[in-house]
């Protein structure tokens, strides 16, 4: 009986261990810290937060100037993602500052920044670190006299109905500050840009000089995928996320179609799926290479060996890892420059492989897979492998071309022997 109990306790204690061990790696963020200016946002934006919670995120709401907030404790990050819905905060409470947010992103965590007109310097600074610059005029908003949304609440055409994005069912409503992308930053890209008739200015005052930001150079929503695959979403409008914009119908000026519901909900849900790594996340596993005809991975190759390189690439679908199918994954055999560049062939089940011959050059090579596609996490695999020249006993023992030399050597020896005998004993 005692034995049975022991087994039972052992088994039960092992179950969670197994479940942890066998659960597939999950790249999706789980713990999200939401910093708000006041808790009213929690209810006014509840639809958006609700969609996040329903997808399994644990949201933690804090006031931005709460003195007890912190991103990490004892060197461990407490959150996987940070949502800054606090456009007017001048100083974060606790241990958070711009540097710590940058560190947070640098260690591979995700960030959503929503500014608004009158965005504080702090938020601007965070945005600048991410590669976008908000309009310097604090009161400026994006104004579009042609593509504005027909609405009943204001007349200054700052509520924009934008459909400059992929597969627009309904235009997205935007009201807020515009930003431009830093040309030196190649990682940031526009997701939602203003139309060519838009400009950024203070709607309350008269336009005295030409606006600094005009046309489609204005970005309304931008994303960044950092080199470490951390993803950032930056928008100049906090009200985009609000229940009001989610629910309201939209009619674009000059268009007769009136959409019952704006595209905000779908747009923001999908884009936050991307930001929180529910979509477009690739992983490469089982990087293998071996000589053709063998299965063990050698520590070193010889020049002119035939080898086979294989890798498995999977895409995270939000719930499970699905095979990633593409025909443009390439492998390089690289030493200072690629010696071999070959497209991997796929078996449609995520397994990619290529066969090639090691070049006739010795040195320390690398198998490199650099796969960067828009919207997907970048894959950068490199595996170092030395390539050695032939060993002394790996050359051919007898060369056919050298037979005359062998012949001459042996005939010389024989001749010398005969000559010696003749010379010594002929007399």
């Amino acid at each position, binding site marked *: 009986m005692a034995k049975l109990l022991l087994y039972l306790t052992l088994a039960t204690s092992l179950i969670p261990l197994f479940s942890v061990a066998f659960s597939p790696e999950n790249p999706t963020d789980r713990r999200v810290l939401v910093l708000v200016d006041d808790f009213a946002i929690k209810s006014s934006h509840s639809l958006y937060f609700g969609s996040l919670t329903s997808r399994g995120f644990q949201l933690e709401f804090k006031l931005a100037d709460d003195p007890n907030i912190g991103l990490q404790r004892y060197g461990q990050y407490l959150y996987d993602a940070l949502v800054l819905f606090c456009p007017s905060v001048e100083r974060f409470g606790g241990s958070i500052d711009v540097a710590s947010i940058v560190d947070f992103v640098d260690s591979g965590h995700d960030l959503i920044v929503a500014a608004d007109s009158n965005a504080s310097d702090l938020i601007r600074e965070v945005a600048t670190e991410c590669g976008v610059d908000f309009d310097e005029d604090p009161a400026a908003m994006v104004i579009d006299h042609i593509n504005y949304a027909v609405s009943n609440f204001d007349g200054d055409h700052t509520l924009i109905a934008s459909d400059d994005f992929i597969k627009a069912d309904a235009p997205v409503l935007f009201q807020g500050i515009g930003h431009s992308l830093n040309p030196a930053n190649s990682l940031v890209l526009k997701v939602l840009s203003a139309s060519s008739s838009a400009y950024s200015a203070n709607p309350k005052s008269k336009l005295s000089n030409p606006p600094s930001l005009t046309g489609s150079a204005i970005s309304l929503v931008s994303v960044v995928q950092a080199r470490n695959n951390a993803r950032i979403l930056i928008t100049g409008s906090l009200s985009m996320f609000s229940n009001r914009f989610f629910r309201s119908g939209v009619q674009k000026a000059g268009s007769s179609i009136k959409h019952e519901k704006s595209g905000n909900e779908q747009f923001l849900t999908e884009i936050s799926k991307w930001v929180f790594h529910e979509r477009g996340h690739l992983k490469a596993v089982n990087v293998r290479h071996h000589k053709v005809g063998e299965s063990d991975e050698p520590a*070193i190759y010889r020049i002119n060996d035939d080898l086979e390189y294989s890798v498995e690439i999977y895409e995270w679908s939000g719930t499970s890892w699905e095979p990633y199918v593409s025909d443009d994954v390439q492998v390089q055999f690289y*030493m*200072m420059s690629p010696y071999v560049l070959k497209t991997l062939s796929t078996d449609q089940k995520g397994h990619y492989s290529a066969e090639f011959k090691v070049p006739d050059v*010795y*040195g*320390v*090579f*690398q198998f490199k897979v650099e796969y960067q596609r828009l919207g997907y996490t970048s894959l950068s695999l490199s595996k*170092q492998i*030395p*390539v*050695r*020249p032939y*060993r*002394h006993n790996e050359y051919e023992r007898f060369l056919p071309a050298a037979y005359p030399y062998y012949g001459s050597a042996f005939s010389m020896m024989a001749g010398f022997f005969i000559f010696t005998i003749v010379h010594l004993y002929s007399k």
Partner: protein
Amino acid sequence: MVGKTESQNGAVKATAAPAMNLESDLFSNFSFKSFKLKTKQQELLLRVSILGLVYILAFITRLFSVLRYESMIHEFDPYFNYRTTLFLTEKGFYEFWNWFDSESWYPLGRIIGGTLYPGLMVTAAFIYWTLRFLRFAVHIREVCVLTAPFFASNTTVVAYFFGKEIWDSGAGLVAAAFIAICPGYISRSVAGSYDNEGVAIFALLLTFYLFVKAVNTGSLAWALASAFGYFYMVSAWGGYVFIINLIPLYVLVLLITGRYSMRLYVAYNCMYVLGMLLAMQIRFVGFQHVQSGEHMAAMGVFFLMQVFYFLDWVKYMLSDTKLFQAFLRITVTSAIAVGALALGVGTASGYISPWTGRFYSLLDPTYAKDNIPIIASVSEHQPTAWSSFMFDFHILLFLFPAGLYFCFKKLSDATIFIVMYGLTSMYFAGVMVRLILVATPAVCLISAIAVSATIKNLTSLLRTKSKTAVAGSSKGTGGSKASSKASFDQSQPFQKNGAIALLLGAFYLLSKYATHCTWVTSEAYSSPSIVLAARGAHGNRVIFDDYREAYFWLRQNTPPDAKVMSWWDYGYQITAMGNRTVIVDNNTWNNTHIATVGRAMSSYEDEAYEIMRSLDVDYVLVVFGGVTGYSSDDINKFLWMVRIGGGVFPVIKEPDYLVNGDYRVDKGAAPKMLNCL
């Protein structure tokens, strides 16, 4: 300090001993009568015991570094040798032979087995295996540390036999004693200086000795032994080129001076053919031995030798002198023409490679400075300063011309050889500091001839005086004539006193030499250069062990596959002690790669970053000696980085780093200098 006094005593004793030996038969007449030994036996006993003492002395005088610091490997190159020896003892010979090292010269890698002279490592490993076989549980490091002193001891024995071969056994003993403590040799053979030269000087002297022996005897066996000595030398050091050029030169001189003989023919042909075949077995040499310009002299002399033999034969067959004269003219002209044509065609077709830069810079000391900064940047490739000759040779420098005088007085095949060896090596020693080492044995031998001959004459002078009643003064007259210093008139009354005074003077000089050598060894040549010692304000010794601590940090704190970029001086040490991959190291075979590093070091930070990204560099190691006053840091070497980098990449220009032609590192330095990496 125990070691110091002990070795000093030993040195004095050893240098004074040959004189004693020469006087031995004098004393044996009365005082040693009680020993039932014949004069010959006594002399043998003395000689063997002196040689034994010199042998031990040569070993212990090189142990200063171990006493001062610890049993460790010195400097830069020896770390590579140590690492390869370790590999050899662990993995065996074939693995060593085929070793492809991916840790150095990243990402090119280096074929260790094919780019080194394995003699030293194989020797050390062989000693190690022997000791293991005899059940001595020693660590390979101890073997490596003590290899150089051990071979220095062996060199003294060879020097004795060599001296005996070219002069007499007295000269041999003095030569052994000289070479045992000569600072020029000690500089490269202290305990811990585990470098090729330590073994190579032994092999060099052995080859020369065996060759001279072969020429003297005309024996095939000695020539064969000489070929094997040459093989050992080739396997140990790149300086074998000196042998393969000196010996043909010597043979040529003998041919020109009409000293051609059958003995020479046998010795040279056997030595050259077998030596060449053996040398080609070393992978690093391989076909260079028949293809490169440096080895062509030997081949040319080989063919010339055959022509001479042929002429001899024709002369023997033709009894007519006039006919022979005509024949001689035709043969010599055609032989030279054919030789020149072959050389020209070979060079033009690229079959015979031209001389390497190092060889050029030997013949023309300014060549390297203008064309190959990588060679000029090495401190031991600089032209020798006068003071370092004095420092390394001391009184030998003055005895050297005297010895040459004696050699010319008594010309033989052997003395011609030593004269040529001495003169050529002295020239090379003047061109490059490190080649003082090659000149050392010759200088020691020639000086030993001078000392031995002088003392012999003086003592025989004394002896004839004391024994005037017994024997005639004929022997003394002959001796004093040969002596330069003791050329007194026979009738002079103060002759004996003068001889005694000169003898005392000679002993005083020799003892001075011994003190000087010991002092130099202890102060200058025993520092490992990886651990720095300085005198503190109160005369106490301060030890800086920063290098080893830095390498240990690398070993402990960086990922195992990290790549470290540093200037090439530190490459071997980083791989051996830090166990990390380096971009360039002390085997400077790829100038472009070094220039890339030099360029990275001397570019602006963002440009340097790109270069380093392309080389996958993870860490950069720079040495700054400003705090401790350590002079050979990277700031000091920086101009060489600029020059070497600029030699390949013209974007790097030296004047950008100079202020009005001066090199400044303070705030007045050139802006590019301050802003580079």
